[in-house]
């Protein structure tokens, strides 16, 4: 395989990349991408979000100062652009999570390990969502159904489980890349592990990589 980008600077780029990836913006971008690509909700990156919020706030104040002190408008607008980009990442990260929470509120609420991945405001959000949803369903539909069918989470009293609760589909395939030079994945149906190099894009079952996200693997 012709490994010929002709650049010669790929090694240097790799080092720069590792340096770059330690900036919060880069970490936030990775968190956002992973969250978007994963079918279930991932661990809330509390530290990262806190730092990002602080940096954004600091930058907002700095930009205001610059504007008032009459710094040249070009520089101010460039700082504003960087600020907008970081802001977008943060907002979109939170919104993607909210979308998942809305979709799977009952499932997450019932599930200990998923519940522990939420931030405190998110937990409050889910609780309120559930209360509102239950109230709404009760008033519009459930109270008018025969007695045995009035539960929000079960079709009827005879259901053995909560079968009206939407679940995220974990049997789905995810595109991912190895974060480091080389990652080895254990697959169910073959003894040979799947070897992933830096430039490989793999579509694998979510279950196979779910505990490796953020460490060895990046979702694409």
């Amino acid at each position, binding site marked *: 395989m*012709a490994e010929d980008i002709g650049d010669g600077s790929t090694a240097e780029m790799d080092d720069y990349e590792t340096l770059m990836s330690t900036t919060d913006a880069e970490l936030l971008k990775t968190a956002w991408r992973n969250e978007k690509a994963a079918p279930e909700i991932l661990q809330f990156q509390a530290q990262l979000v806190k730092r990002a919020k602080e940096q954004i706030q600091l930058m907002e104040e700095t930009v205001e100062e610059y504007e008032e002190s009459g710094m040249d408008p070009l520089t101010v607008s460039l700082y504003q652009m960087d600020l907008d980009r970081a802001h977008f990442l943060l907002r979109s990260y939170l919104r993607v999570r909210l979308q998942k929470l809305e979709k799977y509120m009952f499932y997450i609420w019932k599930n200990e390990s998923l519940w522990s991945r939420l931030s405190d405001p998110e937990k409050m959000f889910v609780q309120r969502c559930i209360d509102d949803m239950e109230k709404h369903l009760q008033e519009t539909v459930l109270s008018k159904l025969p007695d045995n069918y009035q539960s929000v989470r079960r079709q009827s009293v005879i259901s053995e489980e909560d079968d009206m609760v939407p679940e995220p589909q974990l049997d789905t395939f995810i595109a991912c890349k190895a974060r480091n030079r080389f990652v080895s994945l254990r697959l169910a*149906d073959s003894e040979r592990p799947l070897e992933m190099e830096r430039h490989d894009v793999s579509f694998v*079952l979510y279950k196979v990589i779910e505990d490796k996200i953020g460490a060895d693997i990046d979702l694409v």
Partner: protein
Amino acid sequence: MAGQSDPHVSLFSPPEVEFMAEDELVEIVPNMRMDPLNFICGDFGPFYPQIPVKVPLWLAAALKKRGKCTIRPPQWMSIENLTKVLEGEREDRGTFQAVPFHYIEISRLLFDHARDDIPDIYMVRSLIEDIRDVRLHKVETNLEKFSATSAVKIAHLSAMEVNVVRPFVVRALQAFYKHDNPVLMVDLDSVSDRQSHVTRQRQMPNNAQKQPLKRR
């Protein structure tokens, strides 16, 4: 609304893919003097006239738009290299040539903002379009050769290409997986005729035994 794209078309909208590509570094030659920029996403500069410096693509585009610099096309975008890549793509039907992960987005941004900085731009553009076509076609034909596997690895696939083929590949792999493991997989068929296509992927009741409701 900050980036909520329709997941049934593709996971990331093209602007979102471009957003991710805009952090890639590219070399510019400023024509003015500017102090270092201390951004949230990193520190760049200081900028001196005629001294090349590496900045993220979004910054390069912004400066170029305001006439403050010229952009140096990356080395992989030379006609010589692109021709080599295209030939490689055409000869080698089974594998992809090594290209930068964001080659489509980077070249698009440069075409839009830095036309005058790219020598022989028509040639470069047509080469890249050809490369895109050959690669996309290759993905399609290779996918036909899927045997039932639980994973597919494609070397040197680029970001935009992943995003475009993702829905198809995921559905194809899911179908294989379902046929191999009928017990484990959620029964998509029984769900689909009760609910409309749009909501199908959103509402997935779990695997528990459902009391069959009266079907209309």
